[in-house]
C-alpha cells in the first residue's frame, strides 16, 4: 500500500473527459513523477488530491483515509502540502511573516484565537521560521515584502513554507517551469537534499525531462487523462508507447 492510493478517478469538464480511470500508487518516502504532454490532466489530477476539485468517480486515499469531500485546509492538516504552478505566497507580507504562518498552522491547527499575544513572544515559531529561512538561503530577504523577490526566490520561499509544516507528502506542480537552467539545477539540488534529509514523499509534475530523470524513482506517464505506463526511469526512457506518445513525438515527426 502506498501513502497515496488513487483508484479509478475520473473527472469531466463539460464535454471534455479530463481524467479517465486513473489508478496510481505513490510509495512512502519515494519521489514519484507524473509526466505527460500539455493538457494531459496532470494539474487536474493534483487538484483532486488537495480538495480543489472533487472527482466524479473513484477514490483518493491518503495514509488509509479518504481525502474526497474534505476542505483544502483539512487535507493540508492531514499532511499534504502543495507548491503551485505559479508561486502562491503572501505577497503583501514580509518574507519572515510568510514563513511564520505555516509554522503557526503546524503548531496551532486550522484556527486559534491568538488576538492578544504578541508576535515577538512566539519564540519557538520565530526560531523555526528563521531556521527555515537560513536553510533555504533566504535570510537576506527576511524583512522584505515577498512581492519584491525574484521568481526563483518566491518559488524557494513557497517550498520552504510547505516544508515548515513537515508534510508527509509534498506535491509540486512544474516547480521549474519558466526557470533558467541554473535555477532549475538549484531546484534539483534542493529537492534532492530535501529527499535525503527528511522522511518525505514527493509527487512531482514536471515537463523538463532532465529534472524528472535526476529525481524520480518512479514515473507515471499520463496522456489524455489516462495513465499510459508506470515504471522506473530507465524503463520509461526505452518504452515504445512512451516514445510514441510523449518523449518521441519529435522523432516520430521527423
Amino acid at each position, binding site marked *: 500500500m502506498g501513502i497515496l492510493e488513487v483508484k479509478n478517478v475520473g473527472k469531466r469538464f463539460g464535454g471534455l473527459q479530463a481524467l479517465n480511470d486513473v489508478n496510481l500508487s505513490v510509495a512512502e518516502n519515494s519521489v514519484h513523477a507524473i509526466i505527460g504532454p500539455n493538457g494531459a490532466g496532470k494539474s487536474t489530477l493534483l487538484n483532486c488530491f488537495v480538495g480543489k476539485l472533487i472527482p466524479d468517480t473513484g477514490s483518493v486515499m491518503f495514509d488509509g483515509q479518504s481525502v474526497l469531500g474534505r476542505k*483544502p485546509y483539512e487535507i493540508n492538516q492531514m499532511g499534504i502540502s502543495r507548491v503551485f504552478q505559479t508561486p502562491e505566497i503572501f505577497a503583501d507580507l514580509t518574507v519572515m511573516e510568510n514563513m511564520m504562518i505555516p509554522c503557526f498552522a503546524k503548531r496551532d491547527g486550522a484556527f486559534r484565537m*491568538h*488576538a492578544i499575544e504578541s508576535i515577538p513572544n*512566539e519564540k519557538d515559531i520565530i526560531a523555526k521560521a528563521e531556521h527555515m529561512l537560513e536553510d533555504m538561503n533566504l535570510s537576506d530577504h527576511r524583512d522584505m515584502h515577498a512581492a519584491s523577490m525574484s521568481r526563483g526566490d518566491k518559488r524557494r520561499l513557497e517550498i520552504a513554507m510547505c516544508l515548515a509544516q513537515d508534510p508527509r507528502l509534498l506535491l509540486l506542480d512544474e516547480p521549474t517551469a519558466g526557470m533558467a537552467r541554473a535555477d532549475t539545477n538549484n531546484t534539483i539540488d534542493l529537492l534532492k537534499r530535501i529527499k535525503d534529509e527528511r522522511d518525505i514523499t514527493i509527487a512531482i509534475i514536471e515537463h523538463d525531462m532532465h529534472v524528472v530523470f535526476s529525481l524520480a524513482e518512479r514515473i507515471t506517464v499520463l496522456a489524455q487523462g489516462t495513465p499510459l505506463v508506470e515504471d522506473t526511469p530507465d524503463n520509461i526512457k526505452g518504452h515504445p508507447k512512451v516514445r510514441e506518445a510523449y518523449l518521441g513525438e519529435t522523432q516520430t515527426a521527423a
Partner: protein
Amino acid sequence: MFGLNKRDTGLIAIVTVLVILAPFILNPFPEGSAMAQFNAGYPDLMQRFVIFGIFAIGFNLLFGLTGYLSFGHAAFLGVGSYGAIWMLKLFSLNVIPSIIMGVIVAGIFALAVGFVSLRRSGIYFSILTLAFAQMSYALAYSVLTPITGGETGLQIKSTDSPLLSNLEPGEIGRASLFGLDMRSSFEIEMGDWLFTFNTGYYLAGIVMILAFYLAIRITRSPFGMMLRAIKSNQQRLNYTGLNARPYTLAVFVISGMYAGLAGGLMVAMDTQVGPERMFWTASGEVVLMTILGGAGTLIGPVLGAGFIKYMENIISKINKGILEQWFAFMPDGIEDLLITLVYPFVGKGWHLTLGLMFMAVVIFLPGGLVEGGQRIGRVFRRRDRKSEHAEADAAKQRNTPAE
C-alpha cells in the same frame, strides 16, 4: 510598554495627550473673534470625534486587515444603541452596564450577520451586509416599533424608573457614571478664551484610548497577521492548513462590538436613539472615514473620523452672513464674486467639499491622510539628510589638503 513596541507606545502616548488636551487644542481662537467659527472644543463635537473614532477603529480592524468591506456597519452601532438605552430605562442610570449591554447586543447581532455574509467575499459580501443593515433599519421603523420606538426612537422619559435608581416620581433620569452626570461640564475662562471640560467627553475619550490600545494589540498579534494573510492570498492560506472562516467571523464580531461600543457611548452622552442611526448613509460614512484617514493604518481611522466630523459640524455652519463678514474688507465687486465662488462649498454644500477632498485623497494619496503625513515627513527627512551630506562633504573638503 504594555506589550507594545516603541513606535506603537509613542503613537498611543500621542493619542492620549491629544485626547486629554483636546478642549485646549480644539479651541485655539478667542471667543467672539472672527475665527471662533472654527473652534471645535465644545462637548457635543468632541464626544462625536472620539465616538466615531472608536467606530472607525473597529471598522478598520475588519476592512483594513482582511479587506472585507462591510457596508452595513451602522446596523451594529444602532443595535448597540438600542441595547444601551433599554439598560438605562430599565436597569440603571449608570452608563457602564448600559455600554456593556450595547457591546454584547451588537456582538451577538454581528455573529448572526457575519455567519451568513461571510459565506461570500468581495462585492457580494458588501451587498449582503448592506441588505442586513437596511432590513434592520426598516424593521426598527416598522414592525419592531414596540422595542425601537419607531420613527421617534427612544429616550429617557419621566415615566422610566430604572431598577437600581431611586428617582422621585416624575423626575427624568440622567445618565451618570457612579453619580457623575454625563452632561456636567467644568469651564475655565482664560482671558478671551473659554475652555470646557465635559464628563461625558472624558469618559468617551478614555474608552477610545483603551479601544485604540486593544486595536494595536490585535493588529500586532498572530491573529492580526492571519487576517492580513487572508487579504493577501486566501488560496495560499487554505492550502497552508488554515481555515479562513473562523478568522474572518471573529474579526467581524470584534468589529461589530466596537460599533456597539460606539453606539452605547452615544446613548450614554445624549440618552436617545432613532433608527436613522442605522441608515445606509451612516454605514457609508464610516467607510469614508477609514479610507480618508488611511485603511489598514492604526491612526488613520481616528484622523478620518475627526476630519469628517469637523467638516460636518464646522464647515456646514458657515452661512452667507459669515462669508460676508470675512470678505467685508474687499472691494464690493470682488467680495460678491468670492462669496459666490465659496458659497457652494460651505453650509449645506459641505458634502461637495467633502466629496472633492475624498476624491483627491483616493486619487493622489491612496494611503489616506496617514500617507500624506508620511510623505511630508519624508520630504523633511530628505532635506535633513541633504544638509547632513552637504556638511559631511564640506568636512571632507576641509580635511583634504589643498593641492
